[in-house]
């Protein structure tokens, strides 16, 4: 079973790193996102436009006030870019995970899936290989976003260390397993790319925006809050922030971290089991 998963994972990874456009996109996309979201949600930008006829000192001052206000909303000393960049790590995982379902549809379309289905391997290992390769891709891209965010001015807490970094990636790892399994489970019987894209698009943006990844939950209307509070992306974002903002003055909030880990572990286990069960039943021809 392990050797089958390994063989299929190697295949996926090889396909991925051999596609120059994919590698290029992987590098360029986070830069665009960090830049775009960082700017679009940076409310100081909104103020500068209508007041452009005022002297620059005054707009800068207003901007500074706004930044401070936002900082208080996002929790103390934190600026929006750091808040957003930390959440962006989970969003990157979300977006790489959705491709795991895509590759199942793709393999079905081009007959490769049939080759796997006539092989004497567990159906679950086909799904697990997709999940594993998706996790590898996701974590790799998250690492890239993380380093670019540092270059762009992400301000980690002064006690941020290697263990915190491991914590961040452990959280993202669990989120990635859960989301990849979820997307595969949803698309396991889908035969066309169009239908798959429709399903993915229906889920993607709500999952991203109805979470604390880009926006604090307590600024949302109540109905949205109730969605965001069950969204695993909120828990992953919160976990990542807890680790990144680890400072000497505040220290790690162990109960908050434990809660987030518990939710993420449950999410990963439940959905990968669902994926495996559905694979045994739903992964067949026709």
């Amino acid at each position: 079973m392990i050797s089958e998963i390994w063989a299929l994972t190697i295949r996926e990874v090889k396909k991925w790193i051999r596609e120059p456009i994919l590698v290029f996109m992987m590098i360029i996309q986070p830069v665009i996102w960090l830049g775009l979201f960082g700017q679009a949600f940076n409310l100081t930008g909104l103020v500068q436009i209508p007041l452009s006829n005022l002297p620059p000192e005054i707009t800068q001052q207003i901007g500074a006030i706004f930044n401070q206000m936002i900082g208080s909303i996002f929790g103390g000393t934190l600026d929006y870019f750091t808040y957003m960049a930390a959440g962006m790590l989970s969003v990157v995982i979300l977006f790489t995970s959705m491709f795991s379902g895509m590759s199942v549809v793709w393999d079905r379309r081009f007959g490769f899936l049939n080759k796997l289905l006539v092989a004497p391997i567990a159906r679950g290992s086909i799904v697990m290989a997709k999940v594993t390769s998706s996790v590898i891709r996701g974590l790799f891209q998250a690492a890239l976003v993380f380093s670019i965010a540092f270059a762009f001015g992400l301000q980690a807490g002064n006690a941020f260390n290697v263990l915190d970094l491991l914590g961040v990636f452990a959280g993202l790892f669990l989120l990635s397993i859960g989301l990849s399994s979820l997307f595969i489970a949803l698309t396991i019987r889908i035969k066309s790319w169009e239908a798959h894209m429709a399903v993915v698009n229906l889920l993607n943006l709500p999952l991203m925006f109805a979470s604390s990844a880009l926006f604090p939950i307590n600024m949302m209307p109540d109905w949205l809050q109730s969605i965001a509070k069950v969204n695993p992306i909120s828990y992953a974002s919160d976990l990542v922030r807890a680790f990144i903002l680890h400072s000497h003055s505040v220290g790690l909030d162990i109960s908050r971290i434990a809660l987030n880990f518990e939710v993420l572990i449950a999410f990963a286990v439940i959905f990968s089991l669902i994926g495996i069960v559905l694979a045994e039943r739903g992964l067949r021809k026709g």
Partner: protein
Amino acid sequence: MAIVETKDLTKAFGKLIAVDHVSFAVEEGEIFGFLGPNGAGKTTTINMLTTLMNPTEGSAKVAGFDIVKDANKVRSLIGLVPQDLTVDEDLTGMENMMLQAMLYHVPKDVAKKRIEEVLRLVELEDAANRKVETYSGGMRKRLELAEGLIHYPKILFLDEPTLGLDVQTRAVIWDYIKKLREERGMTIFMTTHYMEEADALCDRIAIIDYGKIRALGKPKELKDGIGGDVIELALFDNSKDFSEAITKMPYVIDVKRKSEIYRIKVTKGEEALPNIIEGILKMNLKVSNVSLIKPTLDQVYLEYTGRSLRETEGNREEVMRMMRNIRRARS
């Protein structure tokens, strides 16, 4: 010993019954062909026998194991070369083979030797380290064939092995298939809608149409079954009917006359022909035209299904061309 045995095997897609209570047995070591037009149920039968689909009714045993209950055992004993190309274009030939070997749990050191061996068999050893997207259609099919052999299956399923290939490549594939049987004693179950292919390769053929087996037997038996050879002969003298005299000659089964042309059904065409001409010359008659018509599977097919296989081919070629275009557009 029967290596494949089906009993009332049936597959329905909604109201459409693709395979309708089909029962047959394939003996170990033979090349067994399913001959029929597009949509006759050939691929559906293969899909069931290779565990890709479950039958709606009936049962089948492959290599002694039930295709539903012991699906994984069946899988480990069979090889499938599907109709569509399923090799991964983004990997090299060698990587595709290695992946296949791992999926069939062939140990790495054994796999290396076998890959070398089967790639040599299909003459792809020079192209092994190139990406499959640079391969021609024939090369891809040969790689597909090599993949189906990596775990030394007891029985190899070939679904339209030469569909859409040019004449030379087709001949090469035929050679490989014959070689496999001769050198390995491998049982081969193949589908085809090419008459010549079934005739040249198969020990036994089942003619399938609308999901039912219409005839089953050795190609020669099937051909003999619709009557033997026919000699068509034209005489200069059209004034009298010589049918009766001809009927009395050796080998002759039946004679039909249409003005000066006689259609003579005989048992052994090659031996009958000189005898009949000699006899006619002895009657002081002159032959203006003569031809020996050997029965073809095409005629057998026509006999059992009431339509010519050729009629269905045009459509199929069109589909293939479209699929090739899609593939080209993708690369």
